[in-house]
């Protein structure tokens, strides 16, 4: 007999392997070597989260009790998958173009980015999934119990609850580790998907192994097996037509609406082509999973004692035959089924909870709005982690409260029926433009309520939630309102509930949709969803907004992270023909940005955040016209016109910008001479005045004499410095400079610069650095580069007006270039001055207080261009921020 301890050890080893696989996949993906992680096979295998412990163990039990009916649970998904051209293809395309993060997000986004709908679907999903998670925990504890010898005192010391707690905690840890690594849900969870794929292989292999053993080892080969099946009670029950059709339909609906299935089918989909492979490969997987179910059930009924639980035949039959290795394999298969379901369900639910409940609450609570709130990125991740722990805790709680009873066994179908209530809103939303928010709301609420009344609440058993009297006679004795026989119709409870809840759901959905008039945003989104293949053009929710690009950048950085947000803004600006990081606020840009944000926080939240900044979230008359103009020709024509007029506007804007800059430059050129004169004459005045005093005054006190001499000396130095700067600049500008290139450590250069800028003293600015990231060997003119650093640090020292001045130096590598950012915590530089600070003598504040001539940044710019890099002002950092970029060639392998 395999010992309990050995089993625990095997189980732990298996978990370690899963962690390793997930970690390895994450590493490969991070290194960009994710080619075969994105293979269609991995995608197909990840869909196997459909097969939970309920199907792994339960299918055999189901077959033992009700014959062939279990197979309907697999037939539904088969039909949906081979019919991918109808529905799944469209869902995946919509998921991609709209950056959908969950099924709640899809519904919310489709119906005018309504968060109410998002919340309802989220609640529905949580209520429907929690018992299902409890079921998985139960199956794991039960399968552990099988391995404990009968009557041994040992089991009493092993608390089944402790097993459940350990499993739930382990799963929470795994999910948090690999499920909340990156924020953007559209950046798929490579580690999780890979681990799920491995588990998929294990469970299929385990079930096929047990099946083969049963057919060839116990059943005497396929021929004799057929005879045994015919003789078995399994083949005696009539197939019940109502349940056969109802359950096939229900499982087909579930594969589309289960949060975890939506997660793997749509959200984690890396390439639409993978769906084509999955369309036949996943049905094949399902067929293989169910191939040996009937034989195992038949043999199990033959060889096992009558009181044995058929739900555990997959384990007990091999164990009974002394095949411990096989039983262990089967155990791992069941363990895999349970864990993969829980992991994916927890990820899907936590995304919904954080995007539709936590974030909106937070945004509401933070009245200052999106720009002012704290680091949203961290908040979202934290919200997801807490949600994952919360979901698993709920599952465990449900397991404890339901007492691990048989009540759980039926929960699979109940859960299916619950999430299937989303189906009308989902299909209506992607196929019918007339579907409205009001209709979806009515349908969901009706369906949800009826499901709870007819199936979910009665499932707790008589007297638990509903009294026996209520079940038998209906509320207040009204017979036609009996929960399990509405309108006096008597059928199988599950079919009854599915029938009434969905019929009335659809009815409410249609009448709600037809009765009202959809808002502009709904119509816009409706058109985009329904016509996703015809119209890949962007929807136009945002017209000429007054948003400040800088505010948007500030917000985007909070959510996407600084590097990614900056890259996005830079790219868009470049596409518009502009330099820098602040593109024009075009409707296309806002749309694009909103989608990117939606990938992290969901459509409704992203819309609300952009709306807060842009200052208007309604849709203009022009947008309505665009929706109303249905013919493709009109769309084509108007979009051409728009493109042309936009191009004209852009050219005009560029000309205006160039002209403004030229004018500003010419004024500066004109002022140049007078500036030089002023800069030279001011120190000279002091020198002349004091030297005359020294010459003329006979009886000057010695201390006065020293003081005046010192003034003369200081002012002479100031003159020298100014002349040096001028000469330096002129040499640089005329290109007569020779570079002395040598290898050095970036951190050394920064050390040197910090020391030279004199910020080590008590009044100096505090510099925050990250030495680990600065350990980069570069090859360049180190003296020149240090000169630039000194200038930037000295500038921050002079101009940063914060109470506790602080300068952050951040080194990052992006796109092969090395960027060093200098960001202080002062007031920053006003937008209108940002374009001019690199020009000569362009001091912004009181010149004398700083003591420089306003040439520093001009010199920096020249130096950097000589070194083949650049220096720019980095907007959107609160304080003044400069980015020094070095070319790739500077980077030297250490």
């Amino acid at each position, binding site marked *: 007999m395999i010992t309990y301890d050995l089993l625990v050890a095997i189980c732990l080893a298996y978990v370690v392997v899963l962690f390793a696989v997930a970690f390895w996949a994450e590493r490969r993906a991070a290194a960009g070597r994710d080619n075969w992680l994105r293979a269609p096979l991995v995608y197909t295998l990840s869909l196997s989260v459909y097969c939970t412990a309920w199907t792994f163990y339960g299918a055999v039990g189901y077959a033992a009790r009700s*014959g*062939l009916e279990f*197979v309907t649970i697999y*037939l539904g998904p*088969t*039909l*949906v*998958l*081979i*019919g*991918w*051209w*109808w529905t799944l293809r469209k869902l995946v395309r919509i998921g991609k173009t709209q950056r959908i993060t969950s099924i709640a997000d899809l519904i919310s986004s489709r119906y005018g980015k309504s968060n109410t709908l998002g919340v309802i679907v989220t609640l529905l999903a949580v209520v429907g999934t929690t018992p299902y998670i409890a079921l998985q925990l139960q199956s794991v504890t039960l399968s552990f119990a099988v391995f404990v010898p009968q009557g041994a005192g040992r089991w009493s010391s092993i608390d089944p609850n402790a097993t459940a707690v350990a499993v739930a905690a382990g799963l929470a840890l795994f999910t948090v580790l690999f499920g909340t690594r990156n924020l953007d849900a559209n950046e798929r969870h490579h580690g999780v998907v890979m681990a799920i794929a491995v588990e998929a292989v294990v469970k299929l292999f385990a079930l096929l192994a047990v099946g083969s053993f049963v057919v060839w080892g116990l059943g005497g080969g396929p021929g004799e*097996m*057929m*005879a045994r*099946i*015919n003789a078995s009670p*399994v*083949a*005696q*029950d*009539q*197939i019940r*037509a109502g349940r*056969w*059709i109802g359950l*096939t339909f229900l499982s087909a609906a579930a594969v589309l609406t289960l949060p975890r299935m939506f997660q793997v089918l749509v959200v984690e989909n890396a390439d639409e*082509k993978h769906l*084509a*492979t999955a*369309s*036949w*490969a996943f*049905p*094949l997987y399902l*067929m293989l999973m169910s*191939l040996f179910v*009937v034989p195992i059930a038949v043999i199990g009924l033959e060889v096992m004692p009558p009181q044995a639980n058929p739900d555990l035949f997959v384990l007990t039959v091999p164990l009974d035959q002394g095949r411990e290795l096989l039983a262990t394999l089967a155990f791992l298969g069941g363990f895999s089924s349970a864990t993969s379901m829980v992991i994916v369900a927890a990820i899907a639910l936590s995304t919904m909870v954080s995007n539709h409940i936590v974030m909106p609450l937070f945004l509401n609570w933070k009245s200052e709005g999106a720009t002012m709130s704290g680091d949203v990125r961290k908040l979202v991740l934290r919200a997801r982690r807490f949600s994952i722990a919360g979901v698993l805790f709920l599952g465990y709680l449900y397991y404890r409260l339901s007492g691990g009873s048989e009540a759980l066994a039926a929960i699979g179908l109940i859960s299916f029926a619950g999430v299937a209530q989303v189906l009308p809103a989902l299909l209506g939303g992607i196929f019918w433009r007339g579907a409205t928010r009001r209709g979806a709301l009515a349908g969901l609420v009706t369906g949800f309520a009826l499901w709870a009344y007819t199936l979910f609440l009665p499932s707790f058993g008589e007297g638990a939630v509903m009294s026996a009297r209520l079940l038998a006679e209906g509320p207040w004795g009204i017979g036609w309102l009996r929960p399990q026989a509405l309108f006096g119709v008597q059928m199988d409870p599950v079919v009854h509930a599915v029938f009434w809840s969905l019929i009335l759901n659809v009815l409410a959905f249609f009448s709600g949709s037809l009765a009202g008039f959809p808002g502009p945003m709904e119509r816009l989104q409706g058109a985009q969803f329904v016509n996703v293949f015809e119209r890949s053009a962007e929807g136009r929710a945002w017209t000429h907004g007054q948003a400040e690009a800088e505010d948007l950048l500030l917000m985007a950085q909070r959510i996407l992270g600084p590097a990614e947000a900056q890259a996005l803004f830079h790219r868009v600006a470049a596409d518009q023909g502009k330099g820098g990081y602040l593109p024009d606020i075009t409707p296309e840009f806002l749309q694009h940005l909103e989608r990117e944000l939606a990938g992290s926080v969901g459509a409704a939240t992203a819309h609300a955040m952009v709306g807060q900044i842009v200052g208007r979230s309604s849709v203009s008359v022009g947008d309505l016209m665009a929706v109303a103009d249905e013919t493709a020709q009109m769309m084509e024509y108007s979009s051409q016109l728009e493109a042309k007029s936009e191009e004209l506007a852009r050219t005009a804007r560029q000309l205006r910008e160039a002209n403004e800059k030229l004018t500003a430059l010419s004024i500066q050129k004109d002022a140049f001479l007078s500036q030089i004169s002023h800069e030279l004459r001011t120190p000279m005045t002091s020198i002349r005045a004091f030297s005359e005093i020294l010459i003329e005054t006979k009886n000057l006190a010695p201390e006065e004499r020293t003081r005046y001499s010192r003034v003369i000396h200081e002012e002479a130095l100031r003159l020298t410095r100014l002349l040096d700067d001028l000469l330096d600049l002129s040499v640089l500008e005329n290109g007569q400079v020779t570079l002395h290139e040598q290898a050095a450590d970036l951190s050394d250069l920064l050390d040197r610069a910090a020391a030279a800028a004199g910020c080590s003293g008590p009044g100096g600015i505090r510099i925050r650095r990250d030495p680990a990231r600065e350990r980069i060997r570069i090859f360049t003119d180190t003296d020149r580069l240090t000169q630039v650093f000194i200038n930037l640090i000295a500038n921050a020292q002079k101009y940063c007006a914060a109470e506790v001045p602080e300068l952050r130096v951040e080194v990052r590598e992006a796109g092969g270039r090395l960027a060093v950012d200098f960001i202080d915590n002062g007031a920053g530089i006003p937008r209108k001055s940002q374009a001019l600070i690199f020009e000569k003598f362009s001091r912004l504040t009181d010149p004398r207080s700083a003591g420089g001539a306003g040439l520093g940044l001009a010199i920096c710019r020249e130096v950097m261009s000589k070194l083949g890099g650049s220096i720019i002002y980095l907007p959107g950092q609160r304080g003044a921020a400069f980015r020094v970029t070095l070319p790739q060639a500077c980077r030297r392998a250490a």
Partner: protein
Amino acid sequence: MTRRTRLFLEREGYRRRRLRDMARLLPVLGIVLFLLPLLHGRPEAGVIAYLFLAWAGLILLAGLLSRRLQEDPPAPPGESGP
């Protein structure tokens, strides 16, 4: 020359449209096949065997269709395979 090329492309386009029609019809066929066991009533070994054969057949068809549907855009004339 040009006429022939266009004709060829049109035929190709026609084929593709019919392939999509088949992809749309496949689940309908599946529904019909999966409902047939109801006529027999008892889930005897023969019925089970039939169900799995029908299932395998559908998977095979879906596999063939998905391969053909993925070949897009249509290969230029002269290079297209048999």
